[in-house]
């Protein structure tokens, strides 16, 4: 199997079966290039979350091959996969999951906790990341003092603080009102503009329509993959 240097994620013939006969992914082939912004759309149960977990190395496929940032997931140990996530992959979840009672700054700094970077540098980079998502004025606020949109932007800052090669977002606007959702999408678009590769999972067609490439899933298969013709 091959993948070009421009490809950050390659899935080849990927299956993911769960005990009890549930097959979440069936023979999935997918390439995502560096710098892309991709939406994975599909109804619930279509396998898109499993796909995100597999791309994010949180889950290993039952069959098929997964390459992330040049590494073959099957050849790496659990420790090495953890290190790969720590340095190259950022996750954003639907429900933010910030540590309660901990300031936004330290929540974001925890994104670097497992990279071996010292506390001072973690905080400095966390501040920069929070400014990047437009929350420079909320550094010392605790999660309960932030709006839903601000919490999700904090979670995004936590994911991008280590400059990941790949940012994976699972329904990032699913728990937000439309205004906050738009803010969050704008932040993701900004990150995309500055070169971050982003994969967004969503079941909302509207959200997907913001994004230049849409991968449609149903029953564990990729049933559509269309990219808008981008200029420049």
């Amino acid at each position, binding site marked *: 199997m091959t993948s070009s240097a421009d490809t950050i994620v390659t899935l080849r013939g990927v299956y993911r079966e769960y005990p009890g006969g549930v097959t979440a992914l069936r023979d999935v082939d997918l390439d995502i290039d560096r710098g892309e912004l991709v939406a994975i759309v599909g109804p619930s149960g279509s396998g898109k979350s499993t796909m995100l977990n597999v791309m*994010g190395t*949180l889950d290993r496929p039952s069959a098929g091959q997964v390459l992330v940032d040049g590494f073959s997931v099957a050849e790496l140990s659990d*420790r090495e996969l*953890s*290190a790969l996530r720590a340095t190259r992959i950022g996750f954003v979840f639907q429900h933010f999951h910030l*540590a309660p*009672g901990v300031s936004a700054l330290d929540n974001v700094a925890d994104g670097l*906790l*497992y990279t071996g970077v010292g506390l001072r540098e973690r905080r400095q980079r966390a501040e920069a990341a929070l400014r990047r998502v437009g929350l420079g004025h909320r550094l010392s606020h605790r999660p309960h003092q932030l709006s839903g949109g601000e919490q999700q932007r904090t979670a995004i800052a936590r994911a991008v603080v280590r400059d990941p090669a790949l940012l994976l977002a699972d329904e990032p606007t699913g728990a937000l009102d439309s205004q906050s959702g738009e803010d969050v999408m704008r932040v993701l678009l900004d990150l995309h503009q500055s070169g971050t590769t982003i994969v967004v999972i969503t079941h909302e067609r509207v959200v997907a329509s913001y994004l230049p490439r849409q991968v449609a899933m149903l029953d564990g298969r990729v049933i559509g993959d269309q990219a808008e013709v981008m200029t420049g």
Partner: protein
Amino acid sequence: MITSPKPGRLSPPDVLRLAAYGLRARPLRVVLSALGIAIGIAAMVAVVGTSTSSRAQLNRLLDSLGTNLLTAGPGLTLSGEQAKLPDQSVAMVGRIGSVESVTAIGQLPKAKVYRTNKIPAPQSGGIGTYAVHTDLLKTVGGTVASGTWLNDGTSRYPAVVLGARTAERLGIDDVNGDLQIWLGERWFTVIGILDPVPLAPELDLGALIGWQAAQRYLGFDGDITKLYVRTDPDAVESVHGLLARTVNPAQPNEVDVSRPSDVLAARAAANTTFTGLLLGLGAVALLVGGIGVANTMVISVLERRYEIGLRRSLGATRGHIRVQFLAESLLLSVLGGGTGILLGSGVTAVYATLQDWPTVVPIWVIAGGITAALIIGAVAGLYPAMRAARLAPTEALAAA
């Protein structure tokens, strides 16, 4: 191929911060489960502390009383009758080179003591009447609480000095010139009350009268019931060996020689069996506390599955997760242990102060308490930490 990624190490301050974070989020549960450990450690520290303090008090007491007092009393003859001490024994013991002073007392078993002559005869209260010499007080290291000690003058007249418990039993706590008690069918004037005499506790429940007065008023036959011998502190053992033969050269086997300071020390040693029991109870409390910590940690792992998944997604290895929960358990136990040491030391200090003892909490108890807490924390945290680490990331994240 590119080199495989290496996970970063957590620095000790980071581990401590993670542990503290986990505990801070659930303060009430932390307090309750640390309390179990605290009670166990406090019990053990307090038990050891009070017994050490009481021993320190005993040493202080023995230092001030001296361990160089010996007593010799009549034992049993070969035919099983009560032996007697020869009249000349005082003089003979006095001739041993290292004896500093020697004095005799004689009990008057028929002379009963009553507060007044209106008290029915059977209610004598177990008080013993002793004929004594004036050098008794100095030899046994006694002190007068109130009034005066017998002198050559008062020894000839019906005057009595009461032991501390005798005075208490008769309800006399102060000496004023003309207080009299009914002793041996006649009135004796109370001229003094003694403080407790730790090395001669039999005197505490005694009524002490002059040797001549006993002979003149109560028909005392002059039989010696006990000799008190104060020796050169360096020669106690050798005098101990000589004493029986000197007191009664004909029948040394009929003389009981003992060293009262040894009796005090033996009584203190006997208390350690009780200490052992209490220590055992403390250990049980500690065990229960450890189970409480383990339980708290197991529940914590169950409740925080999503946090574990999130940390795995942030790049935590299984080792990182294990260390975090183990550190949390250790911190929880050490918090409990530290509180327990403070509590136990406090209890010791209060108890010792109330007893007028010096407060002594040995360093090894504090070190032992912290070590015990660490071991409990490690044992209690090991299984939950392993469970947390074994959790697959996707499974953990699905727990939301």
